């Protein structure tokens, strides 16, 4: 099935968790926040959550800014 990951279409297996997505995309767990359909998902649930078709996942971090 397809989800939207950081604005781009991304194909995953049905039982994929947030943790799996992070691993697949080489993203470390430190210094990030994960949103699913604009709701922040606490780190505690990253290996539990699974997705529905077209869910919107955002992985956000701090970058340089004024």
């Amino acid at each position, binding site marked *: 099935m397809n989800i939207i*990951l950081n604005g781009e279409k991304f194909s995953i297996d049905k039982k994929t968790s947030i943790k799996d997505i992070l691993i697949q995309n080489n*993203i470390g767990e430190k*210094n990030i926040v994960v949103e699913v359909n604009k709701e922040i998902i606490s780190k505690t649930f990253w290996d539990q959550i699974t997705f529905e078709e077209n869910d919107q996942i955002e*992985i956000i*971090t701090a*970058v340089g*800014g004024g």
Partner: protein
Amino acid sequence: MPLIIDKKTYKSRLIIGSGKYKNFEETKKALEASGAEMITVALKRTNLGQNDKQKNLLDYIDPNTYKILPNTAGCFSSEDAIRVCLIARELLNDNLVKLEVLADKETLLPNEEETLAAAKELVQLGFSVMVYTTDNVELAIELERVGCVSVMPLASPIGTGQGIKNSNNLKNIIKNANIPIIVDAGIGTASDATIAMELGCDAVLLNSAIAMSDNPVQMAEAMKHAVIAGRKAFNAKRMKISNIAIPSSKKTDALS
């Protein structure tokens, strides 16, 4: 009186931004040279498929040493700004935020209505809000009234380096405020920061003036001294301006 923002005391009256530097190493060196204790960051999507050993900004700026001020930069509605603040709180485990809601991409001027709406809601949600705003005195008063911990009017538009174009409005905001007034945006060089402090601002927030100079580390140090000089001059109070020349030595000391 030291600078107190949200019950925390700061020795430095300079706050710097972390944008536009060549790399994180330069950001860190400029931060150290500036003497600033608070630095703003933005929140953005991570790059996908990157090397997971790749360093993050927060690996270079230790949140235990510096106060990290997350900024809602790039938000054009109160809804988006509130969302960014919630993400920031999750990321940094802190309630302090810089609220910035812009009106349009061309001018990057604040959207007053959306800024006020977001400020009200964020305060209700338990955030400590440092708010970027126009130099509108009435709005500054209202933002303080709704519970912001600092009001941060622009001196001229973001990233322009035009310096202070609105001294009288800034003075009026300062006169009516009971919370720190911090000039945010428009500072181009060290003398601009000094003037802001001489007007009576409590602090200065700047980014491009350091990052876009030819030598950011040297400019960061210049800004550190500029802010100190301006504050001391403000405290010492400038002499009265005279329309006629007045000799520095007494008449009785003259030889003829």
